[in-house]
């Protein structure tokens, strides 16, 4: 096991040339008892399970078939994917020889790669608090700030949500969560693993200046034959079938939270501010081995959200109506060929997004309708040049054509850094615009990995060619012809890392790189934005050390992020025509993160992580520096999942500094509306109180016979019943201040049946 310690932090491509440690445990599917004496041959490797069911293998990166055999077992063949630089823990659930039911595998692992990065298997994520939804684990990962209740924002190491990109098998998706944040928009049943790289990610990812979240869909061949799940939030169903060499799995989920609450009580009286959205998501995954070592995978996924509600008021001038629709679909096909010295992969993907947000704050409307058509191509090749050198090259092509229509106030939707007091009506100026925005990013990337003695180094570069277009540079006036904006930009971003293995247990590593992302197409209106916006830029640097022994690891990381050319509002009294946004914004993030991890110690896995950070932004070179809207100085999170026999228990405990807010230092009366308006103090000059919450989830599995298994689960959120402050709120004259608090203790029970 000592060798495994060093392997875990080897940089990605270099590691691809060497073996990675795969540890595992074979257990009885129904009783969860360890199974000793089973044999697991893989290629030239052979392992046997000990009395605790454990085994270990060293396998090169790539896809492998694990075959578990013994006289007393039904043979089990399961595929795993070993990733470069990633140790892997697997749990293989087997049936007795007399039981000819379907096969199942669960992979659990929490091994880190680069400092601050975390990889979690979906099976482990599902036993943790989060409604049994695998992707909800992202909000509990080290480096991720505590999200506000109901928020879908993901803040990674002081980066704004729009600066972090979510990929599914390398394909960018617009949202990780459904509206309201109750569930993942990517479904649950077919997710295989989740990986967070909070900064300094590799050359194969672009278009983000914050972090990267990679969601991997699982092999459909290891999905249950069927599965159904229901709780108070929603219900889902999944099924798998095989047609020759083709394996297809599909899943669908439909919410009924709004109807379920309506049965019990009038939702408006239960929690007037609570969103009760409706959501639907569906996924289809297919995999076929076309020839030996040549695999075709394809998937399609879609998500629909709807939210309609009215926040009533004693005064119609302050009543808020909201009607939101968010829909997206993505599809991709990947052809992957494995060679003795590496692998080749080509992915073609496409999709569409359609969002409509219609608000009314009293008489002031704020409507935004967006239709986007997106698509791209990804090709990558990895080769082991020698025992010491590995080369990875790739090509990315991403395109987006957006059609947008906006009506309403300039200040809605609010932007990061806006000076705003909760309850304050938006500006009453009303404008309208329709426009198109084009964003194309063609990139090539290369990474060379070298290994010499205790030193491993990666040197890489990503060169992007950007085409940014907007349909109008000036506001639309009558039948005047439109003159659009087009710009071609080229960026060359160096990225790399150096790692030194000080001993079998201790590794130190440093990563750095430059990153760019294109402006959002919704910011290119000639009325509400600036058509000629370009690229935002960031430099990342991380250095860290990791000590590992057995099932435990301790990791420390110091990180810094420097942001420039950020898109911000022009604060001038009269900004130039067609230019109400500028790229004068800048920012900096510095922090320290210490994380202790445990993997598979008597069925217990998890982490305890403390993050100390400071994220500051400047909206203009002449403006004072301020705190980032989501800055959280201290963040402490403990996550643990324990599996024993038919039981699994997960818990999460979190403490976080309150987010910055702006104080009210005065008030004035607006005679036209008859309402009071707050005079704000310095932007983000005060903070919300600190947050603390503990959550618990328990699950009991039952064998129903004939291969059918059931599980009942109960999740209790906010065990201490603490009323955490989510927002500062005020009386109508802003003379008195209070807090909008999150819900008290909340229990959710559910049932899952599968075969």
């Amino acid at each position, binding site marked *: 096991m000592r060798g495994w310690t060093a392997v875990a932090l080897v940089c990605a491509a270099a590691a691809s040339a060497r073996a990675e440690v795969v540890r595992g445990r074979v257990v009885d599917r129904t009783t969860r008892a360890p199974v000793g004496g089973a044999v697991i041959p893989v290629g030239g490797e052979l392992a046997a399970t000990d009395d605790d069911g454990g085994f270990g293998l060293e396998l090169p990166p790539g896809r492998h078939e694990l075959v578990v055999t013994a006289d007393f077992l039904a043979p089990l063949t399961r595929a795993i994917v070993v990733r470069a630089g990633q140790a892997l823990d697997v749990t293989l659930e087997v049936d007795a020889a007399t039981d000819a039911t379907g096969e199942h595998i669960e992979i659990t692992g929490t091994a880190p790669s680069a400092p601050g990065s975390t990889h979690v298997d979906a099976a482990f994520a599902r036993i943790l608090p989060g409604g049994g939804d695998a992707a909800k684990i992202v909000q509990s990962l080290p480096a991720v700030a505590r999200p506000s209740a*109901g928020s879908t924002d993901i803040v990674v190491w002081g980066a704004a949500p729009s600066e972090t990109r979510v990929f599914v098998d390398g394909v960018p998706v617009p949202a990780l969560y459904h509206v309201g944040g109750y569930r993942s928009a990517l479904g649950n049943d077919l997710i295989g693993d989740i990986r967070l790289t909070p900064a300094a990610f590799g050359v194969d990812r672009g278009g983000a200046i914050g972090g990267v979240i990679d969601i991997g869909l699982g092999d459909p061949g290891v999905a249950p034959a069927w599965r159904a799940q229901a709780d108070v939030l929603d219900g889902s169903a999944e099924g798998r079938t095989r047609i020759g060499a083709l394996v297809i799995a599909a899943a669908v989920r439909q919410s009924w939270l709004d109807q379920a609450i309506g049965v019990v009580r009038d939702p408006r009286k239960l929690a007037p501010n609570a969103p009760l959205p409706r959501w639907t998501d569906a996924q289809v995954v297919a995999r076929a081995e076309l020839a030996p070592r040549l695999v075709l995978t394809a998937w399609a996924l879609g998500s629909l959200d709807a939210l309609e509600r009215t926040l009533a008021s004693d*005064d119609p001038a302050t009543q808020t109506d909201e009607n939101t629709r968010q829909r997206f679909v993505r599809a991709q096909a990947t052809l992957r060929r494995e060679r003795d010295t590496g692998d080749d992969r080509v992915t073609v993907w496409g999709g569409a997004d359609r969002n409509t947000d219609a608000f009314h704050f009293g008489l002031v409307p704020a409507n935004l309708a967006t239709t986007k058509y997106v698509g791209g191509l990804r090709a990558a090749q990895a080769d082991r040049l020698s025992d010491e050198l590995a080369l990875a090259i790739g090509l990315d092509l991403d395109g987006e054509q957006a059609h947008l229509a906006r009506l309403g106030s300039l*200040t809605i939707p609010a932007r990061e850094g*806006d000076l705003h007091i909760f309850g304050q009506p938006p500006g009453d100026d009303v404008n309208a615009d329709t426009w198109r925005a084009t964003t194309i990013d063609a990139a090539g990337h290369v990474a060379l990995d070298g290994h010499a003695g205790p030193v491993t180094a990666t040197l890489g570069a990503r060169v992007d060619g950007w085409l940014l277009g907007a349909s109008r540079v000036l506001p639309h006036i009558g039948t005047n012809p439109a003159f659009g904006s087009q710009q071609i930009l080229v960026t060359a971003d160096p990225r790399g890392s150096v790692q030194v293995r000080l001993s079998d247990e201790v590794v130190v590593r440093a990563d750095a790189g430059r990153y760019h992302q294109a402006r959002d197409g919704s910011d290119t209106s000639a009325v509400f934005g600036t058509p000629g916006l370009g690229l935002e830029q960031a430099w990342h640097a991380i250095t860290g050390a990791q000590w590992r022994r057995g099932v435990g690891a301790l990791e420390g990381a110091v990180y810094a992020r420097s942001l420039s050319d950020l898109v911000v509002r022009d*604060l001038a009294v*009269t900004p130039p025509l067609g230019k109400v946004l500028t790229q004068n914004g800048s920012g900096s993030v510095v922090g320290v993160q210490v994380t202790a991890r445990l993997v598979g110690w008597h069925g217990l896995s998890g982490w305890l992580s403390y993050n100390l950070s400071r994220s500051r932004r400047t909206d203009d070179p002449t403006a004072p520096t301020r705190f980032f809207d989501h800055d959280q100085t201290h963040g402490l999170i403990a996550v643990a999942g324990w599996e024993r026999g038919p039981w699994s228990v997960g818990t999460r405990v979190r403490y976080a500094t309150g987010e910055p807010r702006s104080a009210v230092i005065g008030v004035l009366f607006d005679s*036209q509306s*008859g309402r009071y308006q707050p005079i704000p103090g310095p932007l983000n000059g005060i903070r919300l109180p600190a947050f603390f919450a503990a959550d618990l989830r328990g699950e009991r599995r039952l064998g129903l016979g004939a291969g059918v298994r059931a599980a009942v689960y109960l999740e209790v959120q906010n065990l201490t019943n603490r009323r955490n402050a989510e927002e500062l709120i005020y009386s109508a004259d802003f003379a*008195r201040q209070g807090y909008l608090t999150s819900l008290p203790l909340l229990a959710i029970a559910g049932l899952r049946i599968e075969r």
Partner: protein
Amino acid sequence: MKHAWRLLLLLAACDDALDQRLANITDTRVLAVISEPAEAKPKAMVTLSALVVGPDGPIATPPAWAFCIAPKPPTEDNVVVPGCLDDSQIVDLGSAATVTGALPKDGCLLFGPDTPPGGFRPRGADETGGFYQPVRAEIAGQFAFGLPRITCDLPNSPAQAATDYRTMYKANANPTLLPLALTDAATGATVSPDAIPAGADVTLTAAWPAEAAERYVSYDPGPQVVVPRREAMRVSWFATAGSLPVDATAIAEDDLATSATTTWHAPTTRGAAFLWLVLRDSRGGIATQQLAVTVE
């Protein structure tokens, strides 16, 4: 997205202690700042007055008046910038119950769509197509802002729309209120304001002439045409005693109703009380009415 509007999605509970009802007059307050006329061109004379009240009835202390000349950037959510509270960015009009002054000549530049030469962004109009000159009334350290509507040209609009607007637009006039009617909520019988039974539920009916909700044209920035509209109306209710179920009642612009009602729950103790109405049209016109009542 920032917290400001996303937090409307919170799964949360509110603090009942902050559930303040502006309809209850418990301290000195400005209820309205009125300009006569309600709309005028820059440099035109306007007469300004304020309705100031307290728990014991109307307050006669004269406000200190001033026009604000601190322009408002498009990123400002409030009706004025904090600079309007600064005496260096005002035009002093003196202290009196009623003052008359000329609207600043550069109102359409400071608060309207006019821009300096050089290609700048015109300010957006409000939902009714209006621009407003802030006027400050200061009473006992409280700042209230009235917003006389200023008549400005359309910015960046097609020639036909600009012509239509110039020829068809009629400046706003303040609405008028008919006498407040008090009736027994149960029987519908007229109730005398001098003899209201303690604890009674009294229906208050605010009515206005049909022409008070004026028809006008406004520029729709979406299709970029001038469209005919009718003013929406909103009645704010106030009382020094008893309770009112709502702070205000709205009549939408497609609603031809010329009255609004609410129910005032009279106090259970005898004594004098005051009721006020403030009628606002959607273009910034204001009418007020006061009624002294006696609860027996």
